[in-house]
Every structure is written in C-alpha cells, then in structure tokens.
C-alpha cells in the first residue's frame, strides 16, 4: 500500500513538473502583461520598466531557469499585479475553494447515492424516471442562469438568504446549491447504472434468500459493490471542483481559486496562474491517490 502511494507520489511529481513546464511556456505565448497592467497611454519606457522589474525582459529560457531555481526554494514568485507573493494570494483563495468543494461534494455524494440507488431499485418506475429526468435537466441547465435566478428568488424576492459574498453560514447556501446541481445530475446517473447491474448480481440473490430486508440489500450489500465506477466519476467531478468554480465564484463574489485563476489568466499574471495551477494540481493528485486508496478500502480484491 505504502509502496503504491510512494510510486504514485513520484509519478505525480513528474506530472507536476510537466504541467509546470507546459503552463510556463504556454502562458507566455499569450501576450505581454505590461500592456495589461499599465494604461493604454503608458509610455514605452514605463512598459520597459515594468518588464525589467519583473524579469520579463530576459530570454524565455533564462526566465524559466530563474523560476525553477526560485521554485526549489518554494518561492513561486510575486504576483505581477498584486505586489504580493503569488503563493499567498493562491493559498488565501484556496482556503475558500477547498471547503466549498468539500461541502458540495459531500452533499452531492450522499444525495446522488441515496437517490440513484433507490431509482435503480425501482427501475422503470415513477421514482426512477423522476430522478433521471430531474437530474438530467439539472445537469444540462446553464449554471450562471441557475445562479442568477436563484439569487433573484431566494435573496432578493423572498429575502431568505444573502445575495452573495461570504461571512455567515447562510452565505454558503446558494453557492453550494448551485454548484451541487451538475455533479449531482451526473453522479446520480452513474450510481443508477452501476447499481442496476450490481442489483442483478448473484450475491443479491443470496441476501434475499437469507431474508435480508430491502434497505440493507440496497445500501449494504449492493452499494459497496457498485461504488467503483461511481468513485471514478466522483474523482472526475472532484477534480473539476478543486479547480475552482469560476462561474459560481464570479456571480456570488466568492473569493475562491476559480475567480482568481480566470482573472490572473486574463490579466496575464503568470506567477499567480502558475502557482494556482500547481496548487490545484497537487490537490487533484492527492485526491487521485485518495481515490486509489478508496478503491482498495471498498473492494478487498484489489488491495494488493
């Protein structure tokens, strides 16, 4: 087990390195940050000064070498726009993204598993169709549309919840709810499909012959067997969430990594972009390892 994790960690480190190189050079193809930092009527001199201050005037390879050397000392460089260490900016934002992702994900997992399993047990029935169609509609409705309509209804019209921002637990309700919809729609489908085949497995027959009640048959006997493909999709969705929820963050003024990432990309704040991508990548790699562990925990047959 530990050997496996070690191997994965080394492999992930290699991926991280590749990612860093890729992002470093690709992002620098997208234009000059000086032009975006300074106003349109700034002089050439000012732009040159900005580039010199941030080492952007050096040859690309030299910039890269310098970046890597700094990185070896865990220095991610300074934000070109915020005059602060890029990693500080990123970690502040990530401190918001992580709980948002985790809370949403937990709710999604619980809801999708319960409803998806019940739908599979009741295959072809009313509840099954209801869950399928509602979740598909949820999964295919544009999220910014849902977000704005939700704000209008629940915050402005009904006044039950704050429109946006952070602060109290109530502030989290709408972002979490909007973020919940799409992964829920997707995972509930996978749970249903996986449960459908698991429910026809032979051990279910054994359980029924033993006189086990329906609920334990669904949620104890079958579910754990049906979880492997579900875990894979959960991993996929979690990766997307760990990358930040750009739209939700933008609309709700939620200070997470997604908004930071898009702003930094559009403003060509390379150091923040790189730091943000590395931090999210590390989070995703850790999650991938956790998922591999989860496979082993759920299914003893793949523990070795």
């Amino acid at each position, binding site marked *: 087990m530990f050997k496996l994790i070690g191997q994965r960690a080394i492999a992930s480190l*290699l991926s991280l390195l590749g990612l860093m190189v890729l992002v470093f050079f690709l992002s620098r193809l997208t234009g000059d940050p000086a032009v975006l930092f300074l106003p349109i009527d700034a002089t050439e001199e000012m732009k040159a000064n900005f580039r010199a201050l941030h080492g952007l005037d050096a040859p690309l390879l030299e910039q890269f070498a310098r970046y890597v050397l700094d990185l070896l000392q865990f220095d991610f460089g300074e934000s070109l726009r915020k005059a602060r260490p890029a990693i500080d900016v990123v970690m502040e934002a990530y401190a918001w993204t992580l709980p948002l992702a985790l809370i949403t994900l937990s709710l999604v997992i619980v809801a999708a598993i319960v409803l998806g399993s019940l739908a599979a047990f009741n295959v072809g029935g009313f509840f099954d169709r209801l869950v399928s169609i509602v979740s598909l509609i949820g999964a*295919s*409705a*544009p999220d910014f549309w849902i977000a704005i309509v939700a704000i209008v209804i629940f915050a402005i019209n009904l006044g039950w919840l704050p429109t946006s921002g952070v602060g109290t637990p109530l502030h989290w309700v709408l972002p979490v709810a909007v973020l919940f919809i799409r992964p829920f729609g997707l995972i509930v489908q996978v749970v249903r499909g996986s449960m459908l085949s698991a429910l026809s497995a032979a051990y279910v027959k054994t359980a029924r012959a033993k006189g086990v009640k329906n609920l334990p048959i669904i949620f104890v006997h079958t579910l754990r067997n049906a979880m492997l493909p579900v875990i894979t999709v959960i991993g996929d969705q979690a990766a997307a969430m760990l*990358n930040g929820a750009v739209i939700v963050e933008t609309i709700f003024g939620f200070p997470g990594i997604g908004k930071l990432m898009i702003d930094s990309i559009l403003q060509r704040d390379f150091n923040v972009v790189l730091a943000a991508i590395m931090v999210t990548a590390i989070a995703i790699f850790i999650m991938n390892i956790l998922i591999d562990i989860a496979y082993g925990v759920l299914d003893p047959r793949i523990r070795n």
Partner: protein
Amino acid sequence: MTDLSLAKPPRSEKSAAATLLSMLWRDKLAFVSAIVLLLIILCAMLGPSLLGELASHQNLRGRNSPPFDLAKGWAFVLGGDSLGRPMLARLIVAARSTMLVAAGAVAFALFVGATLGLVAGYLGKNTSQVIMRLADVIMSFPSLLLAVVVLYVLGPSIPNMILVLAITRIPIYLRTTRAEVLEVRERMFVQAAIVMGASHWRIIARHVLPVVTPTLVTIATLDFAFVMLAESSLSFLGIGIQPPDITWGLMVSQGRPYLSNAWWLALWPGVCIVITTLALNLLSNWMRIALDPAQRWRLEARSTSDE
C-alpha cells in the same frame, strides 16, 4: 437457469433495422428522443441556408419583442432578441454551430482519448504510465488557460473552440478506455484470437473496440451536454465563441443581462440545450439496452407484460 434465447424459435425474418425500429417504438421516451434529435439535425443541416437571412436581420427599435405574439410573423413566436432578430429563427440557425462544436469536440476527444486509451491499455506498463501521466497533466491543466492560449495564439473560431473543448475532455475517454481494455484483453475470446495468431491491431479493432464502444458512447452522450455548457461558460467569461458566430451556449450567455426584463433571450436556448441533452441520454439509455443481448429482454419484456 432457463436458456431463453433458444427456448423460442430464433428471431423472425425481420431485418436488423426493422427490429431496432420496433424496439425503439416500444420505448416511447426513446422514440420521442429520436424524433427530437432528428429534428435538431435537420435544423442544423438546413437552418442556416433557409433562415440565415431572417435570423440575422436586425431591428433595433423592435428589440426584445415578447414571445407568443404572432403579429410579427411565425419567426417571432418565441420573441425577438436584443437586436430585434427572431428568436425561433436564430435558435434554428444556431443549431448548426452548436452541434458542430459539441459533436466535433466530443468526437475529437473520443477519437484521441480512445486511441490513447487503447494503446495505454494494450501495450506495456511503461507506455501506459507515460500516457496516464499525460492524462493527469491534461486533467489539471485548466481549460480556461487552454482556451485563452488557443484563442490568443490561433484566434477565435469554431474549429479552435472544438480543439479547446476536445482537449479538456480527452482524459475521460482515455481513462475509461484503458480501464475497459485492461479488463477485455483478459477475456477468453481475446485469448482465442491470440491462439489463432491474430495481430495486435486485429485484436484491438475486432475484439476490444466493439466491447468498449457502448461505454464510450454512453459517456459521449453525457459529454455532449457538458461541452455545450462549457462552451456557454467560456462565452460568459468572454473567451468563448463570439458573434457573428452563434450557438445556443452563446445565446444563453448573451441573454444573461436580460434575465429580468426579457427572460426569453436566455431561456429558449437553455431549453434547447436541456432538450438535446435529455433526448441524447434517453436514447443512449435505450441503445445500451437494445444493443446488449443480455439486457435486451428488459425492453422486450416491457412490451408484453407490465402496464
């Protein structure tokens, strides 16, 4: 247990297509879905040439005309947009680019992902490791940055948008294909093919791919919605498809400022996306059952017994 397949005389003389059609007819939801998809494809093929003019004719003073008012002609039955163009006509015309982007991106991702997945699953551990790490890199490479890079370097266009969306979806297909291949290649019929002397390519093409395909198609149909929405989100963020190109995703994003006073601008294209997604998924659910001999009885049983 009873061997159902032989208990009755083997299948009737109906052709395969007719059997399929009759099975489609039995699942009413799937049948409606197929019709809807046909309609959308028809719109995508004919729409721009028939309605292109009508859909792009602006009328600034007659903007945001409300829906369900036939006074301005059938094209305005779903209302007019912020430049006074008929919504219905625009929706029909937009079907082409929407389908082009979604189908293009999904097909591209499917092709590349499945190919890499086959290679990773079939060849040795080292190749597989390299490809899987590549997938990790793509997975953690934010699509937004990719969009900006591609659009900045190559310029905004529908093919480039397809490229951006496709690249981000590759890992899904890659991982799924690889996992399935790892399982399928251990199956007995693959071993039987090896014993007969079949080459790697033959085994992949004839024995592995056909087994993996249904799973991939299921993912692809779900991905269709994902891609349409991702495209919409990119437009929302200002780095997606831009006018004069027109897609449902773009229309949703452009209708956003009008949510309060002209809800139909964003709602109809959103409804189009939802309907397409629903239809695709219902049809793919049906297909998964209809094309699998082991599951087909569900579809067949339904016709005679319950209800």
